[in-house]
C-alpha cells in the first residue's frame, strides 16, 4: 500500500483548508452579513463538496497519523500489521467521515 503519499496529500489539503476555518471564525466575529456569505458558500454544492473533502482529509490524516505514531513507538512493522494499520486508517477515515455527515444532516445541518 502506498498510503504515505495520501497522508502527505491530505496534510497539504488541510493546510489550505484551514483558510476556510479562519474565514468562518472571522466572519462569525465580524457580523451577520459576513457570516451569511460563509453560510451561502458552505451551503452550496461546491462548498459542501469542499467541506466534505476537508472532513475526510482531517479524519484520514488523523488515523493515518496514529498509524505513524504506532510505528514511532516501535510496533506494527510486520507485513500483516502494516497492512492492517493502513487498511484500518483508510476504512476508518471514510467510515468516520460518513458518520459525521449523517450526524450533521440529522441535527439540521442540511437546512
Amino acid at each position, binding site marked *: 500500500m502506498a498510503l504515505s503519499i495520501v497522508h*502527505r496529500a491530505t*496534510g*497539504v489539503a*488541510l*493546510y489550505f483548508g*484551514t*483558510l476556510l*476555518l*479562519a474565514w468562518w*471564525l*472571522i*466572519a*462569525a*466575529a465580524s*457580523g*451577520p452579513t*459576513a*457570516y*451569511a456569505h460563509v453560510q451561502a458558500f458552505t451551503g452550496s454544492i461546491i462548498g459542501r463538496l469542499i467541506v466534505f473533502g476537508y472532513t475526510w482529509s*482531517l479524519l484520514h490524516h*488523523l488515523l493515518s*497519523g*496514529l498509524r505513524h*505514531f504506532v510505528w*514511532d513507538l516501535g510496533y506494527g512493522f510486520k507485513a500483516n500489521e502494516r497492512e492492517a494499520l493502513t487498511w484500518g486508517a483508510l476504512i476508518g477515515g471514510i467510515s468516520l467521515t460518513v458518520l*459525521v455527515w449523517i*450526524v*450533521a444532516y440529522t*441535527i*439540521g*445541518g442540511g*437546512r
Partner: protein
Amino acid sequence: MSAPNSPSMRTPLARVRNLGASHSGTKDFWRQRLTAVAMTLLIVPVIVIVLMLLGRNQAGAAQILGSMPIAIVLLLFIIASCWHMKIGMQVVIEDYVHGEKVKLASVMANNFFCIAVALASIYAILKLSSGV
C-alpha cells in the same frame, strides 16, 4: 578530525551534534508529535463544537463561540494545528524544492502563512469572547 582544508577547527561530531540535515536538530520532530497528540485529544470536542453551530445564524454562532470552554478548546486546537502544519509544510518544501533561494523563500512564505492564519483565527475568537 575535520577535513584537512576545512577552515573550521570544530570536529565533524561537534558540527553535527544536535543538528543534522534539517539544521534544527530533532526539535521539529518532537513538536510535530506533540501537536499531533494534542489535536488527537481535541478532535472530538472540536467536531462537537462545529456540529453545535450548524444551522445557526451569526448571533447564535457568536454566542456559542464566545463561551469560555469552547473558546479555549478552539484556541488550543488552532495553535496546535497551525504549528503542526508549519512543520509539515516545511518538510514537504525541503523534500521537493531543491534550489536554495527558492527553498528559503518558500520556507519563509510558509511561516508567514501559518502565523497569519493562526493570529487571524485567535483574534476572531478573542473578539467573540470579549463580545465587542
